[in-house]
């Protein structure tokens, strides 16, 4: 940054950003502190920091005693990571084809692929369920991965295609002249250069998949394939809700997302592109 920003403006900007950060983090903070308190303390003073008197791990104990909780966790991880992997792989490949090759109906194909952004996949729930029943995929993680991949692809193709167009043609052509296959050009030359875009797409796709309740409920409600979002619902009853357990489960559910996010955001920042082309 060559331009100096005046101090007053810098202070103003930081004030706004800090205020926004505090507001955004507040609910998370409340969940976290209350997950460490006894049931009575949660209700008597929800905003208090846990003290030695009110400190209670009962919520975590309940969640971990609930046997399959670790399994739910694993299910969520498997489903989210596999979906992200396929979204990024297929999305990037489709984007490469759309941006790199001139063929008839190129624009039409691009539009068709982008159409999914505008039409919520949940509209097709009944058809998807019939499809999964017919394919014998009900109550499998595969069903969820398939649906989430389909759900994430349109945006991924759309964003990645834009970024692929910016990758230097000369670089790809140099690869072709040196005898690299199109796959090597895609994987070793193009993908590393659009890593920031991939990370963006990953973060955008990650959150809705991890938080989704709809499809796990419909396609995979069985005990052994439940995701954590669905698993946590057992603590929310029609008449009584085990708040300790719910808050603890939610707190625990934050951790993997946080880890994944940290991994991707590191990629966002890292730029190995410098010096490749002028």
């Amino acid at each position, binding site marked *: 940054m060559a331009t100096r920003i005046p101090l007053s403006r810098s202070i103003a900007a930081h004030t706004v950003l800090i205020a926004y950060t505090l507001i955004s983090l507040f609910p998370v903070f409340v969940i976290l502190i209350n997950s460490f308190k006894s049931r009575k303390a949660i209700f008597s003073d929800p905003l208090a920091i846990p003290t030695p008197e009110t400190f209670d791990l009962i919520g975590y104990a309940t969640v971990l005693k609930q046997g399959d909780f670790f399994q739910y966790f694993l299910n969520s991880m498997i489903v989210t990571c596999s979906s992200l992997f396929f979204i990024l792989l297929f999305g990037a490949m489709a984007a490469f084809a759309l941006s790199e090759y001139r063929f008839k109906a190129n624009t039409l194909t691009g539009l068709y692929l982008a159409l999914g952004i505008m039409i919520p996949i949940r509209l097709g729930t009944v058809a998807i369920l019939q499809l999964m029943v017919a394919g014998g995929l009900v109550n499998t993680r595969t069903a969820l991965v398939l649906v989430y991949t389909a759900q994430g692809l349109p945006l991924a193709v759309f964003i990645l295609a834009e970024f692929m167009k910016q990758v*230097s043609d*000369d*670089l790809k*052509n*140099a*690869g*072709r*002249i*040196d*005898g*690299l296959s199109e796959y090597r050009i895609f994987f*070793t*030359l193009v993908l*590393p*250069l659009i890593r920031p875009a991939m990370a963006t797409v990953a973060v955008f796709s990650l959150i809705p998949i991890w938080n989704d309740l709809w499809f796990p409920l419909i396609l995979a409600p069985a005990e052994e394939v439940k995701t954590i979002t669905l698993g946590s619902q057992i603590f929310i009853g029609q008449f009584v809700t085990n708040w300790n357990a719910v808050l603890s489960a939610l707190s625990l559910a934050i951790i993997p997302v946080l880890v994944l996010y940290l991994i991707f955001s590191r990629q966002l920042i890292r730029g*190995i*592109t*410098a*010096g*490749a*082309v*002028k």
Partner: protein
Amino acid sequence: MGSLTLTNVTKSFGTTEVITGVDLHVNDGEFCVFVGPSGCGKSTLLRMIAGLEDCTGGEIAIDGKRVNEVAPAKRELAMVFQSYALYPHLTVRDNMGLALKQAGFAKPDITKATDRAAGMLSLEPLLDRRPAELSGGQRQRVAIGRAIVRTPKLFLFDEPLSNLDAALRVATRIEIARLHRELAATMIYVTHDQIEAMTLADRIVVLRAGKVEQVGAPMELYNDPANTFVAGFIGSPQMNFLKAGALGMRSDTMGLRPEHLTISREAGQMAGKVSHVEKLGGETLVYVHVEGQGLLTVRLFGEHSFTVDETVYLTPDAPRAFHFDANGLRLR
């Protein structure tokens, strides 16, 4: 080993015809330069030779063998790009050796070839760095080195010097000329820099709107242009075009190089007003506005002082003028 023949080569993008029928033969060992205004299809033609674009029509042959259907890597050519196009994830050594590695050469051979090329361009101290750790000039030298390593039949350069600063451009230009002598390889070079074209080329191909306007040695084009376009394009500063009728000649247009106009304060054939003076040290360029003819450039050697708005008289060196008809074609 490395002649190139283009026979009625055409290229269209959709309905727009970009290359409209090019015939050209480049001899083995020749340094051939493509020049032409921006957008005339130089890069497209070069990419077609490299196999990066398909031909819409016509035939491309290397060493007499048709290569239209041959993949770029199998045409045994090397290309140097304006943007360097080094592989960012590889060291200089690996950048240079990649083509041979892909072609299945043994490791010791690759190392030998890389070291030889690095020696020719004094790249040895840089071999273990990555492109990001090099300056612009070093990057372009590495890109040239990468082309040398594979000893191709044909070198293709697409404006390789246009991202470099003036001093580096001269140095690299001389380096390319030296490489051409040492390797005795066929080189095809795209540029729109006059000086690069004139100094490097054995033969210059002047392109306009996807067509070859004239092919010839630099001095042939300079001294014997076929039409107003070539006459105006080759030579810097640009040739003056005068309306010959006003001067009592039978041709339509008279072309006169700026050094073939004499300027005087006392008397001459045309009166005009000085509109601008550029002093370059070794020479002085005087821009004179002449009624009915427009702005004419006069090139004088040494230092001269003229003041703006001063009235001067110009006299053409008639025997050295070129005459063109109404269509811009040369009258001989």
